[in-house]
């Protein structure tokens, strides 16, 4: 098992810069998710770790040793493709055995390991069947098993669960986690699904347009986003973000929204904005779960009024879209009492509000 280090990796394709100065330190045995929207560069990063491509600048290291110049087949990497890339002309057994056979291991050894892996993947009874006779879910297990059986030091998975049905996806998530903990492999998992990343990873690297936005534990990324992009990308339902200008009137700060309306600042968020003295434009982020209706619960909480625009039921929860002049807030209707077109007062939990520099997107923190 290896630690992986990316040191200021840059990748250019002609005029297009896919990755810029990406640096990551992945510890041995860690499960790291590369999270980001399509085209952000996460697959490019993966390809370079695997050896499918070389960085234009910077270096990649396994356990401190540089990988440049080491060809694909010598890197001892497990790679699971999004579309499995199962050898369709071979049996299940032969698929699992491929990596071992090309290493010329003795037949008995190969048989032992293949059977063990097949049992663990619950494919033991299918060993002699052609690989094409398996269902989609079984194919995914085969793909993982095939890479795992050679005991690679690093495991790369490229959106492996995206083609599975939802129920099985949850099951496979659990399986992957167990597998990783058991083998202790370093796993890098590319996904655009933040729920997957949050539930599986030890650390998440949020990437956008080739740049690393934040690298931290799921909780850190969720509770303490480093910038506006991360806050927006991580969290379901999506965080509310309102933009405006900071105004300071006689010691009372408020955010005058671009579309009209005003949010008086207090508590934590006030302190955050106070820190950024040179900042004029700001954004406030507040998660829907941190907006409540009814009476104020804490002194610092910010009270606003608006009109209920629409209500939506999502599973057990009801979500309310509140309009305050031009601004819109999505809130969780915990009391289930609202009706459409009702004028209502709602509160923002001050300590959960996040302050952002409107121009740079950077998170403003009072104690940073």
């Amino acid at each position, binding site marked *: 098992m290896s630690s992986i280090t990316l040191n200021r990796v840059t990748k250019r394709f002609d005029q297009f810069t896919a990755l810029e100065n990406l640096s990551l330190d992945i510890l041995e045995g860690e499960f790291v998710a590369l999270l980001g929207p399509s085209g952000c560069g996460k697959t490019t990063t993966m390809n370079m770790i*695997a050896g499918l491509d070389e960085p234009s600048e910077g270096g990649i290291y396994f356990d401190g040793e540089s990988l440049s110049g080491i060809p694909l*087949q010598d890197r001892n990497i497990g790679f699971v493709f999004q579309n499995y*890339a*199962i*050898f*369709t*002309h071979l049996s299940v057994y032969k698929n699992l055995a491929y*990596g071992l056979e*090309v290493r010329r291991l003795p037949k008995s050894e190969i048989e032992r390991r293949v059977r063990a892996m097949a049992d663990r993947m619950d494919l033991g009874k299918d060993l002699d069947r052609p690989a094409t006779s398996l269902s989609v879910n079984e194919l995914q297990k085969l793909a993982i098993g095939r890479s795992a059986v*050679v005991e690679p030091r690093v495991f790369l998975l490229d959106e492996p669960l995206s083609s599975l049905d939802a129920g099985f996806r949850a099951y496979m998530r659990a399986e992957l986690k167990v597998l990783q903990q058991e083998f202790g492999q370093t796993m890098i998992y590319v996904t655009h699904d933040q729920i997957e990343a949050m539930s599986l990873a030890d650390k998440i690297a949020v990437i956008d347009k080739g740049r690393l936005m934040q690298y931290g534990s799921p909780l850190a990324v969720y509770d303490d986003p480093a910038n506006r992009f991360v806050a927006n990308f991580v969290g379901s339902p999506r965080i509310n973000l309102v933009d405006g200008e900071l105004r300071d009137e006689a010691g009372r700060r408020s955010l005058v929204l671009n579309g009209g309306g005003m949010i008086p600042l207090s508590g934590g968020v006030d302190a955050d904005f106070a820190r950024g003295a040179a900042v004029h434009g700001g954004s406030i982020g507040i998660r829907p779960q941190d907006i409540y209706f009814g009476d104020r619960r804490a002194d610092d909480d910010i009270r606003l009024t608006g009109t209920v625009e629409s209500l939506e039921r999502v599973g057990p929860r009801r979500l309310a879209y509140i309009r305050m002049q031009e601004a819109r807030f999505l809130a969780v209707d915990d009391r289930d009492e609202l009706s459409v077109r009702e004028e209502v007062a709602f509160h923002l939990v001050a300590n959960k509000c996040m302050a952002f520099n409107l121009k740079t997107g950077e998170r403003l923190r009072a104690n940073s």
Partner: protein
Amino acid sequence: MTDIISTRVADVSGDEAMDGKAPLRRGYWSAVARDGRRLGKWFVAPTVILLLFIVVFPLAMQLYLSFTWWTPLDGVRWYRAFESFNAGDNYARLAVDSALWSAIWRTLVIMVFAVPAQFLLGLGLAYLFVDQFPGRKFFYSVLLTPMMIVPAVVGLMFFLVFQGTGPFNHTFGLPASFTWLTDVHRAMLSVIIADTWQWTPLMFLILLSGMLAVPPDQLLAARLLGGSSWQNFRKIILPRMKPVIAIALVLRSVECFKIFDLNFVMTKGGPGVETETVSLYLYKKTFADLDWAYVGAIGLVILFVLSAIAASGLAFASKKAKG
């Protein structure tokens, strides 16, 4: 696609549509034009007629003639050949005709050396062309050229090349007395070389298309699992190419058996009968000996055997390719 449909349909259906015009226009051909099955029958008619009268009929004629002693020297019309009926003597004769069997043997020798050589060379070339590289398209076109040259011209080319005083000997520093086309041992070799030169590109073409059909993802997965190029070639590419390989081998073998233009132009079958293949033997018997009924018998036997082999080979390959 919908825009193709709409523009073409609008363009076409205007005047023909049901406009209630008088039945004057509904002639025989109009009716045919509207009826799929009848139209189809008319479409197939030319082909069927050609096949019936120019294939089925001659075959029947040949079958008939093969049971007689008839030759054009007899002076009677062919349909009166029954006058020299011989009930299978021709067939018995061909079984023991040593000249025929020697010709068959020689043809097989050429096949056994030429076809595998072309296959292996074509396979090697195909492997070089699987990945993209600068100039690939250009070199591809260049390497395909030999199979597009008129075979008789290829015969001429190698006739010139293999002259005792020709370039080949010159390139390899051999004396002018080291003849090829008139040497008992080397004449056949020169024919094999010429055939290989001409048809390796065909194998290259077919095998390359088979190789490119191998899903690149799987090849990538194989490499990531640690497989070397050779291992992946053996375990992934080749097995998946089995139907393509079968088609290529069957097609080329059958064509090679029919070889005529090359050796006719290069050596006329010589020296002596050294390069006399089956086709050449039949040619001789037809035009020199005028032994037509006998040739007819031989022809039918060859036709039968070759068709059976080729058809079964191609059916097997097509099934594998689709299944």
